[in-house]
């Protein structure tokens, strides 16, 4: 294969200027400096097509059907509509590879992945795409199989694409964060790897995402971006190191602590005492994390840790943006049985949605269509006042089952008390 003449790329060349690292310079390194002519030509062709897009303000990639043997998912097929003009990147598929929970890598492993990718692909990679996958961008149909076969042998598997369980995401969590109330890595792997078959073989109404954040700061954007959000929290009192509180007050001043900590508490659960210690109304603390963020050395999560589960978050298409809704205010996650309970909840949810969701309907959209109560009955979860901001405002509802429901409520309260006592 001979080296091809370079396409002119005046618009892209402009993106080599300026102080931020330039992706275009990287493409050009592949075009000009890589020892493999296949990669030189592919990068040249890609630059040519991208310049064409910049000129015409249009995209020129079409989807299609490409998958590796045994899977129906994990590849984003891309065929060029202008392949005659830019033939060396005519097929430019992406492999979505699942990262380790928490996105940890050694340099050795990154090198090994890079070596495999340059053998079979374009040499372009992103850590990570918006769903959370490692994106190996640009290879032929044959290349997808060869690259997958190679990296699959040393521990890497494809993620989801299409109507299936998607690659999960978890925050840095317990590995490096004092705010963590979960074992995020374990949760991520227990949940995702229970659904490996649903990741690789798309057979659901639409995508289904799990995300794990270790606290209410929700660094993984789980509530808004996942169908099943697992957020760390605690039930007992937050921990206060009063000596450290005094140090903050001494350093920042009472006025600052009052204005930026006490007054910013959303439930007015904080007060600064005359001796510069902090008074916390733990019954009204909603674990929002603000004061812990500001005074992270003085304030910490409590010991009775667990998770809040929210379901149904998604972006705009089709009915508009939806946040997740609280489905389980608190679940302990200490024992293997606790984890099994959570897996069962996810299985019930996915089964019910697979049965009742319309084509291309996210779980949250289904909940919107059928109502939260029907969904809860479908997955076998009792109602809880933590699921709503406020009770209904409209009287237009049939309520002839009231007495039974009230009895159910008191019975479940009594059971809860018994369980707590026993």
């Amino acid at each position, binding site marked *: 294969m001979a080296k091809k003449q370079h396409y002119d790329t005046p618009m892209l060349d402009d993106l080599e200027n300026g102080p931020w690292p330039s992706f275009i310079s990287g493409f050009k390194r592949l075009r000009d400096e*890589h020892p493999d002519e296949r990669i030189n030509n592919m990068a040249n062709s890609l630059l040519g097509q991208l310049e064409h897009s910049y000129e015409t303000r249009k995209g020129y990639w079409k989807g299609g059907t490409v998958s590796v043997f045994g899977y129906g998912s994990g590849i984003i097929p891309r065929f060029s509509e202008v392949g005659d003009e830019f033939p060396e990147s005519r097929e430019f598929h992406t492999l979505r590879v699942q990262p*380790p929970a928490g996105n940890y890598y050694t340099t050795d492993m990154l090198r090994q992945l890079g070596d495999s990718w340059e053998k079979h692909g374009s040499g*372009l990679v*992103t850590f990570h795409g918006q769903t959370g996958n490692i994106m190996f961008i640009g290879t032929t149909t044959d290349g997808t199989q060869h690259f997958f076969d190679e990296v699959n042998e040393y521990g890497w598997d494809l993620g989801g694409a299409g109507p299936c369980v998607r690659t999960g995401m978890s925050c840095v969590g317990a590995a490096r964060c004092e705010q963590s109330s979960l074992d995020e890595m374990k949760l991520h792997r227990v949940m995702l790897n229970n659904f490996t078959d649903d990741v*690789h073989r798309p057979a659901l109404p639409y995508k289904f995402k799990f995300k794990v954040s270790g606290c209410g700061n929700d660094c993984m954007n789980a509530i808004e971006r996942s169908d099943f959000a697992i957020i760390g929290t605690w039930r007992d009192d937050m921990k206060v190191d009063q000596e450290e509180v005094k140090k903050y007050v001494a350093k920042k001043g009472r006025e600052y602590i009052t204005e930026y900590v006490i007054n910013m508490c959303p439930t007015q659960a904080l007060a600064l005492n005359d001796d510069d210690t902090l008074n916390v109304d733990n019954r009204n603390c909603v674990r929002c994390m603000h004061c812990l963020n500001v005074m992270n050395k003085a304030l910490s999560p409590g010991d009775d840790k667990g998770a809040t589960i929210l379901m149904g978050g998604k972006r*705009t298409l089709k009915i508009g943006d939806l946040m997740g809704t609280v489905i389980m205010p608190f679940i302990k996650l200490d024992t293997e049985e606790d984890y099994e309970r959570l897996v069962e909840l996810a299985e019930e949810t996915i089964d019910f949605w697979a049965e009742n969701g319309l084509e291309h309907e996210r779980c949250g959209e289904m909940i919107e269509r059928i109502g939260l109560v029907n969904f809860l009955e479908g997955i076998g979860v009792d109602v809880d006042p933590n699921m709503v901001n406020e009770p209904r405002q409209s009287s237009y509802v049939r309520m002839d089952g009231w007495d039974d429901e009230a009895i159910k409520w008191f019975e479940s309260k009594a059971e809860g008390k018994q369980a707590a006592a026993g």
Partner: protein
Amino acid sequence: MAQEHRSPIESGCPDGFQYMHPVMRKNYGDWAYHEDPRPGVLKHVARGGDAIYTVRAGTQRILDVFTLRKLCEIGDTHGDGYIRFTLRSNIEYMVDSEAKVEPLIKALEAEGFVIGGTKNSVTMISHTQGWLHCDIPGTDASGVVKAMMDELIDEFKGWNMPNRVHMTTSCCQINCGGQGDIAINVQHTKPPKINHDLVSNVCERPSVVARCPVAAIRPALVNGKPSLEVDEKKCICCGACFPPCPPMQINDAEHTKLAVWVGGNHSNARGKPTFQKLVAAGIPNNPPRWPEATAVVKQILKAYKEDAKDWERINDWIERIGWPRFFELTGLPFTKYHIDNWRGARRSLNSSTHIRF
């Protein structure tokens, strides 16, 4: 010719512990607090006294293997060989001693990487694929981000903002970029142009009809061929029909515009998580540097920086000062398009005498 196929090993999500820095492994779940020694550097201290230092850097996100190897080499020479990536694609190097931090920073900066993106900075814009790889994009992603980060680099490197600023871009109205304090998203302004010759061959027509959020698409016979037609009075130009039916071309060199949204916040800190709200639209989709979009973003950042209190995210700030003042301070026009008419829109109307004068 029959080919021998290798069966996949369905290993799923790999265990991260094998790639984790030993100090993090040892202190898993046992961290006491963290400090911010300087922008781009975190120091986490475990209850037992161990400390881990993290150096965070911005990159071009789409890495060529040369850049990937360079990042690895820096990690081996100046770090401990352990790396992770943040949600916004910043790279993080973890090292076990303070002495390694400055040489690591110097090495990264010498190669053009940018140290920062922590605490109250404008961190890396999280973005999508755009013209580089997506099948439905109205704009590019990497190019928009490169052009904007060139201008916002000092905000990435510093701690100049009242609180952290998360920005996102999206190349279509599906909005894969997600919610952001500031989001720069494609907004189409004209209905799709339909190639009726192709529709019946390429599109599963009932699915396309079902995909429309406002029921503006119906089956029709055009030039004797089964096709689809759009009620252009109902059409909201969202482009939802384009992915399942590429002959319904929504992207247009002139009429595909950019819009800017603010106040999306995923965190539960202080208020509950919030969605972003429209503030500016009609911004030209202007490669290679999109200067008009960057100008709007800088206007918003300037007003936020000058007027917000410490710890207020953009949504917190606007909630305190009110939307009329936001438009006043940013100099952006308020138009009829800012008034929502989608389902549930009534909750966005002011039904009170709460008005700031």
